[in-house]
């Protein structure tokens, strides 16, 4: 199923510059997405998975900013068209999207990258019909392909004057009739009954599941190569979740696009993905093929996640939760250590230095950012359980002393 690499993300970092300090939401994240595959990113709330998705499509909002890394996207045409002006961004057929102007990145939204979001209700403009909003997405691409050489046509101005004219004059509109028809076709394609009628309805007249289908239709408008799905099923109930996942499966088989699926739901990952990356505190701590990661998890965090799923075949009396919660990632409070060490049952003194990424069992694909991938747990070096709960007074001195005592 999987083909050549389509997207290579290397060392991606995204920071938020807030008054409380710098927050490292995404820290040195690397992964690849291949043609026609589903790559899953899984992690707790606050692990940086959504910000990773937004960073790829350049939609991180202020005060956030992508600060480092490369997002290499394979597109021979694009490479040819930017080679002259931005030679350092081009490497063969790959273009580093971080080194081309914002205008170019924006022009890729729609035909190359598209995104669906968690909450369909808030992701549609409440006062514009669903059909019109999908037709807009079609129209932008239509106008762009009418003038393919120019990225300008996609970013062309639409000022107050034209807004006024389009609002006041009933015959004028940004969206053409053809685009409206295409929107109805798209709605039909994602399985919405009576698409022509429903296209004229407003988001509040749709159910959550139907609206999520409409959002998928909207994302398909530009026939993207990469669909980024940020928690596409989280706001939906379980039967509807299954329908949306089936829909994504079908569409992917039809269109052959690649999907980057962001979720906290391991069941969704297991059901849908070819490969998976596990995120914790802004880092990808373990990645590999679905079977490798799920059957042979190495990182204690991955093991913890998998251990906290109820097993229907062998219902254990109690689930094994991971103690504690994700650190808040404010730069000043983060040491240069394994971020999971404070919650890790197998933390060792070695973990006070940041562990590198180790390949697991000689498998090129499967890697984990954990010393346990390299060697076994050494009991004599284990940190005592309350090591990171430094006492309120004289924290530093006490910590240093207890360290030497050990």
């Amino acid at each position: 199923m999987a083909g050549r690499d389509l997207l290579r993300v290397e060392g991606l970092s995204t920071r938020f510059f807030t008054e409380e300090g710098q927050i490292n939401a995404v820290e040195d994240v690397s992964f690849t997405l291949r043609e026609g595959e589903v790559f899953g990113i899984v992690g707790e709330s606050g692990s940086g998975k959504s910000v990773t998705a937004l960073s790829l499509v350049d939609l991180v909002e202020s005060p956030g900013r992508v600060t480092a890394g490369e997002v290499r996207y394979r597109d021979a045409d694009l490479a040819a068209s930017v080679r002259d002006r931005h030679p350092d961004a081009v490497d063969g057929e790959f273009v580093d999207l971080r080194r081309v102007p914002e205008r170019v990145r924006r022009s890729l939204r729609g035909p190359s990258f598209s995104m669906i979001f968690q909450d369909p209700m808030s992701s549609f403009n409440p006062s514009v019909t669903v059909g019109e909003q999908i037709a807009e997405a079609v129209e932008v691409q239509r106008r762009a392909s009418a003038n393919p050489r120019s990225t300008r046509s996609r970013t062309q101005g639409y000022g107050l004057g034209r807004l006024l004219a389009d609002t006041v004059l009933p015959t004028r509109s940004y969206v053409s009739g053809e685009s409206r028809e295409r929107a109805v076709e798209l709605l039909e394609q994602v399985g919405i009954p009576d698409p022509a009628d429903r296209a004229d309805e407003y988001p509040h007249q749709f159910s959550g599941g139907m609206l999520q289908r409409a959002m998928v239709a909207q994302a398909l408008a530009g026939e993207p190569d990469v669909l980024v799905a940020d928690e596409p099923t989280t706001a939906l109930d379980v039967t509807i979740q299954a329908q949306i996942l089936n829909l994504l499966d079908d569409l992917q088989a039809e269109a052959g696009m690649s999907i980057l699926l962001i979720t906290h739901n391991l069941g969704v990952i297991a059901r849908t993905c070819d490969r998976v990356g596990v995120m914790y505190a802004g880092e990808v701590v373990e990645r590999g093929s679905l079977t490798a990661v799920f059957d042979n998890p190495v990182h204690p965090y991955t093991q913890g996640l998998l251990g906290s799923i109820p097993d229907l075949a062998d219902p254990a009396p109690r689930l094994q939760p991971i103690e504690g919660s994700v650190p808040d990632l404010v730069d000043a409070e983060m040491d240069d250590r394994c971020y999971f060490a404070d919650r890790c049952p197998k933390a060792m003194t070695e973990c006070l230095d940041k562990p590198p990424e180790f390949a697991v069992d000689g498998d090129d694909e499967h890697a984990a950012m954990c010393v346990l991938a390299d060697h076994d747990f050494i009991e004599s070096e284990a940190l005592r359980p309350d090591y990171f709960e430094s006492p309120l007074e004289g924290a530093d001195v006490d910590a240093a002393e207890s360290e030497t005592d050990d």
Partner: protein
Amino acid sequence: MTTVSLGRFLLKRAVQGVFVIWGVVTVVFLLRFITPGDPVTFIAPLDASQELRRRIAAELGLNRPIYVQYLDYLAGLLQGDMGYSYISNTEASARVFARLPATVELAVAATVVAVALSIPLGVVSATRRHEPVDYGATLFSLVGISTPNFWLGIMLVLLLAVQFGLFPTSQRGTGFLPAVAGTVGQFDPGLVVRLAVELRGEALLAYLGKLPLVTWLAHITLPAVTLGTYFTALITRLTRSGMLDELGKSYIRASRAKGLPESLVRYKHALRNTLAPVITVVGLQLGTLIGGAVITEAVFAWPGLGTELIRAINLRDWPLIQGSLIVIGAGFVVVNTLVDALQAYLDPRVVAD
């Protein structure tokens, strides 16, 4: 939203409006009976006999039971009759409607000034947050909201009218429609071109300055700015915060994700949703301006309904007071019904609720 449901919605609002106006009429009518100051004492000479007072009361119909007077007044109103002014012995409706155009003109002019300035300012301020233009707009709206308009009016007159002579200090001149008609009648493009070609700037300005429409504009500018400043500041703030609010919503991010140009995201999506609440406030304010321009009218000796109402209250000229209040109230209701219609057009959920 179908046109049928929109039509029904508007019909419902219109019917509600009729009842509100009826309520206004009733309250305004009853006001006379709970307010001290018998109109007869104001009309009759100081040394008038009881007999004369009774005769005056009988002549004005004030000796009849309240409900008879009420029904009589309602019946009169339905025929456009507001009774006779006690003081000038002319029809109250004639006086009210003679004053109404000046007031409406001023209120509309102030609103136009306010909306034309504030919405672009609010939008620019929101889209260039934390840039100098944003700080400027925020400062302006703070100052604008805190400046009392009688003071502003006097300062504008002193500076622009008295010191620089750019505008007349007071009065209205002709009305808008006569001014347009007069300008169309006497405007001579040939003369303008000739003066321009001959570079006779002063003569050209003198000619243009005498055109009725220009005179009208000169008269209304200062009152409109005075009346509109608070309003401009208020709408700027409202537009800015509304726009910031909308721009932070998920659907904006989704619009960007599907590749829409930024201008379309801002204007077609964010601004349109920002405008719905802004329009409500504009409507409420316009309604208030129709009745509440009293101070500005006083500063500029503007012959509007506000000054007339104050005069009528001082003289206990009840038919005139009642007529003015009813017209002001009805104006408020009409403006708000129109605003509801516009809002239903902009935001379909209004009809659904």
